[in-house]
């Protein structure tokens, strides 16, 4: 393995952190979704790296799974966002929540 | 458990036909209602034909699991795709085929969201078929849940009286059951240490400790028992019956409740015979209470469907009592009762469905004289009622006879109590017949049409099945016997 395992994990953590910050701080649903995607990809990178490191194929299988899930999630998520935008005219989660997010 | 491989995968074919029908219905445009109905009818007719073929082709002398298909599916998880039928599941496959076919025909005049309705309906039936033939615990559980979920939508969208309540209650009760079954399965699989979900492998090779068997059987009994309408977990069933549309009630009371009893039999009794023996007295007690209680509660109902719902509770108690007896007679009677009760309630609900479609009235105090207005529809209703009472030469009689015989043998007191419930049963069912079909004609209903030939067809099929197996019970018993002998002789 040319790239050391630690580097891969480091990259994954950095990616994850980026995604996390993006998710937590941005006030736009699309960016929020983007952040989620980045976090998923971080997990995928970690899986591939760990799979190589441990010489097991399951890591790559899991990465493939994650890709599929991420694709599905984007599809559904974007569709929802479009819907929400049409209904409320805004993409700010705080605005939306104050109207909608009432349990019961 | 002996396995006999299939020459030809007829069981998978049944599932495939269902799935193909489902796909066809989903792909058809929603406006083509007639086409959707034809596709569903063809699909159900083919599955009925295949299940009749399985019933006839099943080798009674050979016994054991036949038509077995075995495919590796996820070896690392120990899950494989195994299908097979024995003397217990063959009658139930036949029952499912019959109720599917007649249910589709019963809904011929149905007009609301036809495509979605039939898609859900076929999905539900697919799950039921899968459950009856699955020999892998994982698949069994998956099919079981597949057969539960469409129920919610079917009732909420197409139901009547109090449908949100009925559907929610039903779903929550049944999911609570699932929540007990899944841990039971996982626990047993882990306990076996064999890492496989294959039922034959577990039955033949696993050696469960008595404690594990008792615990797991309890989980299965309560979990599946909720679906089987075991007292005191039965209250979802009348509420659900009342809310559901006709064909769904037919399927629900006719087949779904049998899934519960079948689950107890297939998973609980095959895997945990010692647990069965341990819990049998409790089962017998609850079943006897259910028999009497269902009949008594039925006496005070005013809604036709509630009455049938409670009579189902009573009749499913007979199944429970038969299983609790742990004798060949008891198990034979219980399985036959599953079949007979399935056909009987299907006929009952389809007759009531017809009456409701025409009158939009289910309080039987407001009906009356219907035999005069619609003699054929009334005739089917009366036939179903008589079957429910246990009149000889109609299918239920033989089942009740054997179950009571077994109960007298093993639990004489419960047997005596259950026998006396027959009189109450007769009283409350005949009361309904009197109020609905007899008496002076209510002028409001004077001009209602009788069942047309097309709509009469499904009822005729059901009535025919009741009478045929009532006059020739040996047709059914030889099949069931081939399995129950093996099960009982294998008991410790």
């Amino acid at each position, binding site marked *: 393995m040319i790239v050391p395992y630690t580097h891969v994990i480091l990259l994954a953590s950095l990616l994850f952190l980026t995604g*996390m910050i993006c*998710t*937590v*701080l941005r006030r736009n649903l699309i960016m*929020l979704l983007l952040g989620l995607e980045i976090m998923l990809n971080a997990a995928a990178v970690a899986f591939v790296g760990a799979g190589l490191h441990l010489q097991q194929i399951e890591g790559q299988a899991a990465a493939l799974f994650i890709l599929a899930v991420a694709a599905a999630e984007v599809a559904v998520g974007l569709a929802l966002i479009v819907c929400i935008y049409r209904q409320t005219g805004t993409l700010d*989660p705080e605005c939306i*929540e104050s109207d909608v*997010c009432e*349990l*019961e | 458990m002996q396995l006999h491989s299939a020459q030809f995968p007829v069981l998978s074919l049944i599932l495939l036909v269902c799935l193909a029908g489902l796909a066809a219905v989903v792909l058809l445009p929603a406006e083509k209602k007639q086409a959707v109905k034809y596709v569903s009818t063809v699909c159900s007719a083919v599955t009925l034909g295949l299940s009749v073929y399985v019933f006839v082709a099943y080798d009674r002398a050979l016994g054991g699991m036949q038509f077995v298909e075995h495919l590796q599916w996820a070896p690392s998880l120990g899950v494989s795709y195994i299908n097979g039928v024995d003397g217990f599941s063959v009658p139930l496959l036949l029952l499912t085929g019959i109720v599917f076919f007649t249910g589709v025909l019963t809904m011929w005049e149905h007009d609301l969201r036809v495509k979605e309705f039939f898609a859900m309906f076929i999905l539900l039936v697919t799950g039921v078929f899968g459950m009856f033939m699955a020999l892998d615990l994982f698949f069994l559980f998956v099919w079981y849940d597949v057969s539960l979920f469409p129920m919610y939508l079917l009732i909420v969208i197409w139901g009547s009286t109090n449908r949100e309540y009925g559907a929610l*209650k039903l779903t*929550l*009760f049944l999911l609570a059951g699932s929540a007990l079954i899944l841990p039971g399965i996982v626990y047993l699989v882990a306990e076996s240490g064999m890492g496989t979900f294959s039922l034959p492998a577990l039955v033949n090779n696993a050696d469960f400790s008595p404690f594990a068997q008792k615990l797991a059987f309890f989980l299965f009994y309560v979990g599946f028992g909720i679906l089987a309408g075991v007292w*005191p977990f039965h*209250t979802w069933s009348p509420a659900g019956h009342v809310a559901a549309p006709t064909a769904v009630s037919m399927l629900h009371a006719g087949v779904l409740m049998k899934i519960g009893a079948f689950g107890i039999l297939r998973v609980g009794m095959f895997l945990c015979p010692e647990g069965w023996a341990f819990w049998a007295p409790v089962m017998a007690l609850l079943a006897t209470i259910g028999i009497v209680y269902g009949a*008594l*509660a039925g*006496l*005070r*109902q005013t809604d036709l469907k509630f009455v049938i719902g409670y009579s189902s509770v009573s009749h499913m108690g007979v199944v429970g009592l038969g299983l609790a007896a742990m004798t*060949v*007679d008891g198990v*034979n*009677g219980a399985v036959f009762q599953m079949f007979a009760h399935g056909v009987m309630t299907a006929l009952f609900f389809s007759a009531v469905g017809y009456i409701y479609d025409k009158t939009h009235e289910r309080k039987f105090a407001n009906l009356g004289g219907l*035999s*005069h207005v619609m003699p054929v529809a009334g005739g089917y209703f009366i036939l179903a009622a*008589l079957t429910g009472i246990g*009149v*000889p030469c109609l299918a239920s*009689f033989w089942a009740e*006879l*054997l179950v*009571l*015989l077994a109960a*007298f*043998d093993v639990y004489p007191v419960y*047997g*005596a109590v259950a*026998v*006396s419930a*027959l*009189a*109450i049963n*007769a*009283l409350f069912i*005949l*009361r309904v017949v*009197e109020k609905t*079909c*007899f*008496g*002076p*004609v209510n002028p409001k209903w004077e001009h209602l049409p009788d069942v047309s030939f097309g709509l009469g067809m499904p009822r005729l099929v059901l009535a025919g099945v009741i009478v045929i197996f009532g006059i020739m*019970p*040996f047709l059914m*018993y*030889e099949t069931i*016997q081939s399995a*129950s*002998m093996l099960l009982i002789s294998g008991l410790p």
Partner: protein
Amino acid sequence: MPGASVISETWLWAGWAAAAAPFAAFVLILFLLRRRPGAAAAVSLAAVATSMVFALCLLVCCVDMETPLRSVVTWMISGDTVISAGVHLDGLSLLMLAVVCGICLLVQVYSLGYMAGDPGFARYYAFMSLFAGAMIFLVLAPGLVQLYIFWELVGLSSYLLIGFWFEKFSASRAGKKAFVMTRLGDVAFLAGLLLLLVRGGVMDIAALSNGAAGLSSGMITVSAVLIFGGVIGKSAQFPLMTWLPDAMEGPTPVSALLHSATMVAAGVFLIARMFPFFSQSDAAMTFLLAVGTVSMLMSATMAMVSRDIKQVWAYSTISQLGFMLMALAAGGYFAGVFHLFTHAGFKALLFLCAGMLIHAFHSNDMFVIGQGGARGLKIPMLCMAVGAAALSGIWPFSGFASKEAVLATLVSLENPAWLIAGLAGVFLTAYYTFRLVFIIVFPAGRGQTRAEDPARGVAYAYGAMAWPVILLAFATLVLGFLAAPIRHWLAAGAGAHEAVHGPAWLAPLSLGLVFAAIAVAWVEFGRKNASQTGFVERVRVVAELFARRWYLDDIWGWAVSRLLDRGAAEACRQADNRVIDGFVHSLAGAAVASGRVLARGHRVMIQARLMIMFAVVFGLTCIMLIWG
């Protein structure tokens, strides 16, 4: 001998065919001939005539049969339990077969007239065929389970026929009452049968009778008493008797066939069939004797005050069935069975005559019929007189011979109370019978001009109704003299040595009682200026008691509505709604409430929540790293 076996084979086939023909007719009418009443009646009559021919052939050919013939096929096997079906031909079953077929045939011919023009004509014949088939299979049953099955089926056809005019509330209600009350008895029967099957393992009546089952005597008593429950229900004995008078809501031919001559006699037949078995238990037989006696006397008193002609015959049916049970319970096998046969004849006769009167005058009330001029109708009145004489037990009519045999068996008992009860029954029988006859023949306002022509309402189909009646009257005359051959035929069964004639004082005594009763009835109802009130009706409390059927109906009604409906059933319903559903609802309510409470802590913006989540996960990871 191959020849003999071929012949017996033929007889057995004849037995099967006799039973199957009406069933075939039932199916045929139900599916094909519902809208063709003429064809339906023809098919039904042809079927029952076929059965009749077979029955007569069998009777003639099998007279000297030494051992019973039987053919048995397996109906169902489950484990060790074998349920079989078959035909069993011996003296009792063949005689009973002939009686059943004969009366079925006559009643069906009669119905051609009585039911003419009814919209449900085809349905009527379908149900009649169902009844005939079920009854024949019942009579021929070799095993107890088969007997039970067809026992239930005749109950079913009775339900359907009582409620034949189901548009009338009273009719459908009476049908339900009949079914449920007999069901109550049948539950006991089924319990006894299952007990026998479980403990003894055999269902064959012959095997049970010769003690092959190896049952203990206690078990025999218990199961016998339970089986008597079925008899009490079906033969309308105390305390399940009140369904029978209500069953008169059905068409009169149905009352004649099912509710007097054949179906209700099935209970007596069952006792006779299993006579050797029941004889093993003295306690059970004493119980039966008591039940028979009580029913006999009670229903006789009810008959004394009724105004409804059919009700009187219904009460008298219960009473006569009580007589038969008394005879059987006292060990008089021949007496009981013989009384069954003669009673079948004369009671069918009485009912059919009553039917002709009702058909003509459109009323069940005997006073109305009398005032309408019933004495002008010669055939029914003459035949009714013959029937009444037989019912009262006057020589030379058939009832005399059989009643004497019954009393003779009662004489042989140690306790004279039974004999006294029997004689009291004879007196009451004659009294209520001739009360009815005198009321009809000598109506109160006679001598005044009768406004209407007696043949007023007589239907065009009078002939179809008259011939069966005349034939039955003839049979009533003849049957009394056939005691000896019938006894010979039955001799293969038990009780070959019992007394047929009592001591010399018995016949004069009973005849004296009969004539005394007739005299009382004449004084009260027959003579000119008679008050037309019976001695019972003068005491209001007693009359009320008898008219209300000893309050039996009220007791049953109270039990059903209070104990069952508003008691147990309501309790179950409330338990369902309050306890079980209440628990479930409170569970659901708790879930929702706790959800609400927890939700309060979540009313923060989603990103803040995410931040908290990440922080927690991070913190947990750190903790695990440090601890791990």
